[in-house]
């Protein structure tokens, strides 16, 4: 028993020593080193205990082994606890050292954007593509014939006064309307025809609401039994997609040489829902495009049998749509490439 007592005392003192030393250690590296030394099989305070087994009387061996294992387990646990505590402390310190001012400005991601008119064009193309329309892009320089004559606007026609045309030669001009593309399409393709034709057009106008160059999109459908009602049905659908659900259209009589009947199309004001505001000048309606049933003279000129086929066409100014949709107050803003303007809209 004397020896047991001694063993007991030794183990108690080992425990006290390890506990004390470990308490003083404040970094995990030193914990690791100390642990290594304590469990060293030759020299370690605990690790070397098993070496004494040989000297232990046989009947006490079991008890000795049990005690040594106990202290081993106790020490492992103690070291693990210390490690955990230290890790927590170190993490805490690390986190604290990395405190930042979250109100400082963000690092901006560099990105650019498409032009607002391109955005509008893409939206319209997506809508019409979904309805089975092809996209035809004509040339900006056009023959007088395609821009006017074939569109039922011969040389002495008063409608030519409606548009101030830039001429390049007696035969060539800058197209005043994307309608010019209609004829090329109908010359090349027989019905059914469903196209839209976006592009730049030119008129000799220059003020806050007119730019000498702007973007138009022409739409043309030629097929069997196409009516004015079909035009209205399609426009009703389109304006809801552009300006939001509940937007309706109103047709009113107008005149274009290449359509008969011709209509101006107004949309119900999407800002005031028709109650009257500054955008719609109190009328509840906003004029957005011209349209009509394709004039038979135009179809016949392209060799299309008007006893079988009929069609509708429309032309819309895309800057106007962009201005209405995004709120630009001057068309010139769209051609100045001011980054403060271009970076505002992402649609």
């Amino acid at each position, binding site marked *: 028993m004397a020896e047991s007592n001694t063993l007991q005392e030794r183990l108690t003192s080992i425990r006290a020593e390890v506990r004390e030393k470990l308490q003083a250690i404040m970094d995990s590296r030193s914990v690791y080193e100390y642990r290594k030394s304590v469990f060293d099989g030759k020299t370690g305070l605990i690790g070397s205990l098993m070496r004494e087994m040989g000297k232990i009387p046989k009947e006490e061996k079991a008890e000795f082994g049990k005690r040594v294992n106990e202290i081993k387990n106790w020490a492992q646990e103690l070291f693990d606890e210390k490690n955990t505590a230290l890790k927590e402390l170190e993490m805490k310190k690390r986190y604290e050292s990395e405190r930042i001012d979250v109100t400082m400005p963000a690092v901006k991601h560099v990105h650019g954007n498409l*032009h607002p008119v391109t955005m509008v064009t893409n939206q319209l193309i997506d809508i019409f593509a979904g309805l089975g329309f092809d996209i035809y892009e004509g040339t900006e320089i056009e023959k007088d014939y395609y821009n006017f004559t074939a569109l039922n606007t011969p040389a002495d026609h008063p409608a030519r006064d409606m548009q101030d045309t830039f001429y390049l030669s007696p035969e060539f001009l800058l197209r005043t309307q994307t309608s010019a593309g209609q004829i090329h399409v109908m010359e090349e393709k027989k019905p059914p025809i469903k196209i839209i034709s976006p592009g730049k057009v030119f008129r*000799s106008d220059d003020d806050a609401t007119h730019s000498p160059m702007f973007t138009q999109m022409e739409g043309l459908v030629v*097929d069997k039994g196409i009516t004015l009602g079909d035009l209205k049905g399609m426009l009703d659908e389109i304006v809801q997609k552009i300006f939001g659900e509940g937007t309706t259209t109103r047709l*009113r009589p107008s005149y274009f040489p290449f359509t*008969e009947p011709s209509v101006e199309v107004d949309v119900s004001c999407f800002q005031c829902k028709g109650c009257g505001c500054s955008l719609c000048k109190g009328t509840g309606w906003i004029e957005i495009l011209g349209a009509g049933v394709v004039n038979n003279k135009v179809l016949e000129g392209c060799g299309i049998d008007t006893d079988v086929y009929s069609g509708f066409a429309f032309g819309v100014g895309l800057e106007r749509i962009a201005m209405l949709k995004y709120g630009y107050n001057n068309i010139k803003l769209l051609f100045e490439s001011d*980054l403060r303007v271009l970076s505002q809209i992402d649609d």
Partner: protein
Amino acid sequence: MLVPLSWLKEYVDINVSPEVLEEKLFSCGFEVEERYQVGKDISGIVVGLVESCDPIEGTHLSLCMVNAGSYGTFQVCCGADNVRAGGKFPLALVGAQVYATAKDHVTVEGLMEIKAGKLRGYDSFGMLCSGTELGLSEDLYPGAGYNGLLVLPEDAEPGADVKEITGLNDWIYDVSITANRPDAMSIFGIAREVAAVLSAPLHAPDLSYTEKLSKTDVTGQGLEVSVAAPDLCPRYIGHYVYDVKIAESPAWMKRRLALVGCSAISNIVDITNYVLKELGQPMHAFDEAFLSQSRIEVRRAREGEPIVTLDEKEFKLNDQNLVICDGEKPVALAGIMGGLNSEIRDTTTGVVFEAAKFARDNVRKTSRALGQASDSSAVFSKGVNEYTTVMAMKRALHLVEELQCGTVSSTHVDVNTGNSVEPRDLTVSVKRVNGVLGITVPDEEIVSILNRLDMQPELSGDTLKLRIPAYREDMEAYQDVAEEVIRMYGYDHVQPTFMPTASVTSGGRSAHQKALLRLRQALAAAGAYEAIHYSFFSPADFDLLMLPQDAPERKAIRILNPINEDLSLMRTTLAPQMLYAIQRNQKRGNIEGRLFEIGKVFLPKELPLADYPEERETLCIGLFGNEESFYTLKGFADTVADTYGVTFRYEAAEATYLHPYQTAAVLLNGEKIGVLGKVKYEIADELVLRTPAYILELDLSPLSKYDSSIKKYRPLPKFDVEKRDFAFVLDQGVSCEQVEEAISGACPYITSVRLFDVYEGANLPKGKKSMAFSVVFTPEDHAFTEQEMVGFTDAVLRDLQEKVGAVLRS
């Protein structure tokens, strides 16, 4: 076009409010741009009976007690010389609004509100008004031109509204007429539409007159009219009027002319203007005494032939201009303005009236070429119809009798090319009319509408027979009938349908359009904003780019009628406008940014244009800012290449506007398709750029054959790739590309060569530089052994030594 409601009411009974009339006009195709009351600016004016009027001593003022009926009796100080007890004058009550006049009591200087006040110590509650203060002229209301109080009729009730008495409550409609309806360009023309849309009867103007003596009886000489240019003058009617007594027109005519913005001159001239406004037919009156040989000849002017028009402007004419001549000389510029030599004078006793149709295009062109325009030329340019030409002459002669300003002779000369002024037949199918509209308009509605439009419809089964009035030259086919029906029936009857009979089509962007969209999106993702610039630019832009006189870019298409010189050429390069965009941004404080434009340049095959020019799709990128460099721009070029799945090569190059040593040509398959570089300092200085700018311009057309190149998945390497870094010392003149090519050529397994460091300076011999490359070796069928790798690197070192004289940096 201005349409007074009171005038309109002469032809049609209007029993709807002015607002409803506006809506009705709008719904049937005549947009009212503005509707206003003649006296819209003034208010609070009633009839005032001056009951007593006592001069205020030592002043020009009178102290009046003015009876304003139910409004009460007011004390008013008045300075007018014609104020008198018992007189009835307009009284502006306290709170009324009238025009303010200058000291001369004639010049209007804005509006003023009447307040109770004191004059010379006397209270005054209101103001007795002159015609000017109410906005009335002598033409609008007789006596209104007097510089003193406006005298109201004896029978005016005190307290009654002066606006009603003086016609200031009349409404003016400013109606916009579409180009297909020149027949509606007159008060009567609009009246026809109003009658139709209101289903009200139409009262035509009186055209009756009685012919008396012939011209030969009166002057001993007949009237001879010949038309030498029937293509430009399909109809010419002349009629002689004698015993003319030039005087003022009656008040009703002066008032109407004044309401539509026409000043009264004399009865004969006023009749021509009145008929123009009433019926839309320009007319002219010649003083017969000044028509040499009593002849009228309509012909093209001779080269250099002079004429002085009524407004005393002289013009030199040519054979593109049509003139009306007497036996010797031009007496009028056809359709535009009369000549000074034959104008109506106070002494005129004989008049030849002219009503003609001149070719609209010729009038328009002459008017533009000479810079001379009139109400007549505006109407002729839109087109008149011969039905109205005939009608107008009758109307003018009727008015001569009505105004008792002359005697209508029996001398009437009508030269024409045989065009009928009778209604013409048009037969259409009702089914087709409805087919245009997509609805079935009830037959009785169709008949009623076309009846109201005086087209005399006869319907049997599907066949609709019409008699189209001669003034409706626009009516040609069933589509036109459909338009007439629906604009009267109402567009709100059109039911939305969704092409129930049309074929199903699949549409969408072409491969090319998709590629351009991808490119735009890639450039935006890389940080650039899209710009859109005009397709035309300035000749000075070539100088900005420092292009030599023979540069191909200078071969640009000219606009014949540009807005100004700065917008006069079709662009052949996108660079100048990009430079200006950078300049604009910097001026506005955006000193760094990235812009791109995809647009067309216009390359003529020959000038002047004989064929469509090439419209070449071109990309321009402009970067500016201290963080930008040649290499950030080159990164954008590589983005373009990546978008199309191609590889660009770059080689040092020159461009007139770019830095001589920081410029590269972009090569695709060995062919130059563009250029990029730093903007020259001379240009940056001229544009006052605060930070460096870089420009790329690239022809996109050669890339279009890669529009639909679909990238395929490449399997990942089965074995680990080996990466080795090399640092070489080489001559400074050796380019990165040369080293890259030498490395790539050294071993077939090299899949990537990337420069990661360049160094010049201390530790290196003069004229040398160090370049460090990261090289990737990709195994194909087995993992590389260490020996193999040694072999590969040895090969690289050997090749580099041989090809570019590079040695491994120690």
